[in-house]
């Protein structure tokens, strides 16, 4: 079988695996963003203890190798949980989502903290002088301004996450890289290696490059 026809035959499966990569990255991003937003706001808490706890959690997950965190999640999380009599399964890919969401949480926490702290302190002072509570100030005055400044670094975080997503293939999740690898094993033709992995690279490039481009444009505008 020629190289081209082999790739044509496997392309839909690889594409499906890539779709799985996209899904995993989006779920991890969603989870990491929600947790990171809380953590980031915690980093500017008026209470020193809360500030310190959030700062340490953030630094811990920002400076840990992603793969090791994924291993921890794979081996520490149960494969299913009992919840009021119903069994909720925890397949490897869900564990992968959790594993990836921790470093995202750390990074988003810093994005949120930086965005909030980039707003001039006069804005806080004016809101304070008008009697707004700290939470009202954050919600009505600071975050609407800070969100704009957070968008670009947040998207940057997502692009980094997407490129790290194939790490889940190491623990057996059926993503594009896993599928490409098993396809190559089945074909037993070393000549296919370059084109098949090349195809995966092109898919990632086509997905991530526009995001990077958009991020650059947003950065230029702000």
């Amino acid at each position, binding site marked *: 079988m020629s190289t081209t026809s082999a790739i044509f035959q496997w392309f839909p499966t690889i594409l499906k695996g890539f779709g799985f990569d996209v899904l995993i990255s989006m779920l991890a991003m969603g989870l990491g963003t929600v947790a990171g937003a809380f953590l980031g706001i915690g980093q500017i808490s008026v209470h020193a203890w809360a500030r310190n706890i959030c700062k340490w959690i953030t630094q811990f997950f920002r400076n840990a190798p992603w793969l090791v965190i994924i291993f921890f999640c794979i081996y520490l999380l149960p494969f299913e949980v009992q919840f009021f009599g119903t069994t909720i399964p925890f397949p490897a890919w869900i564990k992968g989502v959790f594993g990836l969401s921790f470093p995202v949480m750390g990074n988003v926490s810093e994005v949120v903290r930086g965005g909030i702290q980039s707003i*001039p302190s*006069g*804005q806080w*002072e*004016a809101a*304070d*002088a*008008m*009697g*707004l*509570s700290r939470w*009202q100030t954050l919600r*009505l*005055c600071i975050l*609407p*301004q800070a969100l704009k400044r957070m968008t670009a670094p947040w998207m940057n975080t997502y692009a980094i996450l997407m490129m790290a997503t194939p790490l889940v293939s190491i623990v057996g999740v059926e993503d594009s890289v896993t599928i490409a690898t098993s396809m190559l094993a089945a074909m037993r033709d070393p000549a296919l290696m370059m084109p098949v992995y090349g195809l995966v690279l092109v898919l990632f490039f086509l997905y991530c490059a526009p995001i990077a481009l958009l991020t650059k444009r947003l950065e230029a505008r702000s």
Partner: protein
Amino acid sequence: MNSQPDDAIVSVRNIKKAFGPNEVLRGISLNVKKGTAAALIGPSGSGKSTVLRCINGLIAVDAGEAYADGHAVHKIHTAKQSIALRKDVSMVFQQYNLFPHMTVLENVMLAPVTVLKQDAEEVEERAVKLLAKVRLTGKEKEYPGSLSGGQQQRVAIARSLAMRPNVMLFDEVTAALDPETVKEVLNTIRELVAEGMTSILVTHEMRFAREVAHHIFFTDKGLIVEHGEPKEFFSAPKDERTKEFLSHIL
């Protein structure tokens, strides 16, 4: 509230404040009568702006007492007390500090609606009137970024007035403005004082202080060195530091 002189609406007793090793206020006392304007003048770093912030509780004093419109500012602990004070004593800043993502009207309406929970329609009516008062009719839907510095500062004044305060604090409100827009802001303040709004002005505009204020306080190195009515203060200063300062400025 017996510790406050009867005719004083703002009364500060021997307040002290240090930021780290830096003693900014070293025992400042002053009284401001209801319906009058007081000007705080003095060299940069003499603690004028800090005095204002101690009067509305933005900065907590280390020692001494501060009373403003019936509130014992140095004893405020709860959010409720703080809101009551902020409603009665309002402040305008050097950098205007408008919220850039809100329209002019939204800026003016924010505090009465979210803090005082007043009816939005009623507040809007009042806000439109206040904007007319500071001569900004037609700018309601604009964003602060599209206004000149002087216009922004007048929005900030309208925003402060929207709380219907009894005391207004002006912190070097013309210091960041272009010379041509200073006048319009000073005119607005002049009108407010003429209407009987108790005002405390930290300012470097000596001519304006002389003309508008009923009483001048001169601060230097965290102390009030000299105070008095503008006429005698400017024409016959007694203290050496006042003399020197005025000789540089006038």
